[in-house]
């Protein structure tokens, strides 16, 4: 499913957050949303899922304007995960993932065999089947993140929006999460994910959207957007790009004070 925004303006009350946003995301693309704290990444994701009403402009899922859709209509084709999700009561992993089937179920119907299959499959996909009967609250944050991802997959979405899914994870879980997202995108899912880690964005995304100074500073392939000058401009720091012998490149901020070799 194609996700398109045109001349979007987002604000809280009268305070403008982002202005003049426009881009188009094709099916199967993994788009990294980057930008400094407070640049509006979360607000943009909230509006893309229909939660935050734009003060101007439109958001289209294929040809449908999201503002004309009910939450129930959006939920059958688009899944979104907040940055932090809390279960207010003890709930098992399988019960949590099953909640993802809700948009597809009729009011009085219960979990059908097909629903159960999809739930089991989603748990396998994100590697949480082994704790299916454990309480979500008892898991580590990395494991829990994968449970919410499984729930989103159980929605059978065509578009997946994630707000900083790697922010509380150690480096292994960060890579694992991004590998799962990459695999899903390769299978045709449109993924938009906000990230703080420029190196994850550089390695895994097809396109990067860089937000800064209340606008979309750049949108394009990682090579076009993740440049020393654009990143320096967006974050107000100096960075070096270092090319690795595997063909990747990584960002290294230029820090003040002595480095490790000096200290040694």
């Amino acid at each position, binding site marked *: 499913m194609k996700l398109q925004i045109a001349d979007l303006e987002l604000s809280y009350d009268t305070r403008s957050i982002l202005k003049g946003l426009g881009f188009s995301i094709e099916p199967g693309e993994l788009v990294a949303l980057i930008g400094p704290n407070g640049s509006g990444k979360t607000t943009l994701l909230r509006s893309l*899922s229909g*939660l935050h009403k734009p003060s101007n402009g439109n958001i289209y899922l294929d040809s449908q304007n999201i503002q004309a859709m*009910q*939450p*129930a*209509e*959006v*939920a*059958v084709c688009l*899944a*979104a*995960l*907040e940055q932090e*999700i*809390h*279960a*207010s*009561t*003890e*709930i*098992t992993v399988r*019960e*949590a993932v099953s*909640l*993802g089937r*809700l*948009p597809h*179920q009729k*009011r*009085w119907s*219960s979990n059908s065999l097909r629903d159960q299959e999809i739930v089991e499959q989603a748990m396998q996909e994100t590697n949480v089947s082994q704790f299916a009967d454990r309480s979500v609250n008892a898991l580590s944050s990395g494991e829990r993140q994968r449970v919410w991802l499984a729930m989103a997959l159980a*929605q059978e979405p065509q578009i997946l929006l994630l707000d900083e899914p790697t922010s509380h994870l150690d480096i292994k879980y960060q890579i694992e999460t991004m590998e799962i997202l990459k695999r899903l995108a390769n299978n045709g899912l449109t993924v938009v994910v906000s990230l703080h880690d420029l190196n994850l964005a550089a390695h895994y995304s097809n396109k990067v959207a860089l937000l800064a100074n209340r606008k979309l500073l750049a949108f394009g392939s990682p090579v076009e957007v993740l440049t020393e000058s654009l990143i320096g401009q967006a974050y107000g720091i100096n960075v070096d790009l270092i090319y690795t012998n595997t063909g990747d490149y990584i960002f290294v901020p230029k820090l003040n004070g002595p480095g490790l070799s000096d200290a040694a």
Partner: protein
Amino acid sequence: MRRAGLSVFFISLIALIASIACGIAIGPVLIPIDETFKILFGSFFSLTGVDPTHALIIDQVRLPRVLLAALVGFALATCGAVMQGLFRNPLADPYLLGIASGATAGAALVIILQWDTIALALPVGSFLGGLLAVAMVYQLSRGRFGRLDNLTLILAGVALAALFSAVSSFLLYVANNDETRRIVFWVLGGLGGAQWSHVKSLFFIVLIGFTVMLAFAREINALILGEEMATHLGVQPESVKKILMLTATLITAGAVAFAGTIGFIGLIIPHAVRWIVGPNNRILIPVSGLCGATLLIACDTAARTVVQPAEIPVGIITALIGAPFFLLLLKRHRHLSAAHWSERT
């Protein structure tokens, strides 16, 4: 479905039927169980060996009273389950949110104005009182972006409950003897005034309310993850809350109109049931209802038998059981509640 919800459902159903039978048989006049069944299902048995006085006691006194207790217990427990789910708060129940106090004040006002000779004036009065309370609580606790703030909600509920209790106390103060007696009945709570007409009215109120609650059980399930996540799952939290708060007010007011204020059932039953069947509201709500009905029948049977021939208001017994349980709950949830309440809703 955790721990085979259906089997728990049937066990609770059997427990309810057993408690109804015991509640009918036990009293100042003990009626043997076999005779009780003969009287209840008279057309299926021969009526030989049945004392006509016993038949009269069962038909006119015990059966309506036990059935009313069942309906009131069912109403309060299902309301509690729904409110706890709706507000993601283990302490939410029809009393804490001021509904019952509002309903009591409404009933007291109807008595003082001597409107209670008009048919249905009492239930309508208590419904309007409860609705007023809940509307005020709702308005007071709407925070940023028009969302309900759950901590404010509970605090506003407590404050308004106090306000409406003060109104009831004032009405009690200005009432004459006969009115005082009837208002005290509401304040203390009791099932002594049970009549068949009450049973019938409350049955329909509970039936409608229960159907609505069950219809929205899956939305309440989604709310476990918070209102924004529920929206991502296709739920509209604000309208779900409005519909369910109105429904809960309706059946709480119905229960209060016929039995006065009976506390703690709506708080403790859903909790205990959640420990056993898990958080799925499709199972939690009906099982809570059945267990609430069973518990209130048991409490009422105790209330009218322990100090024979006098009768203790049943609200005292539910409070005696409920308050220690509530404290236990506070202790258990102390570490959890801080996390819930500091959370942005």
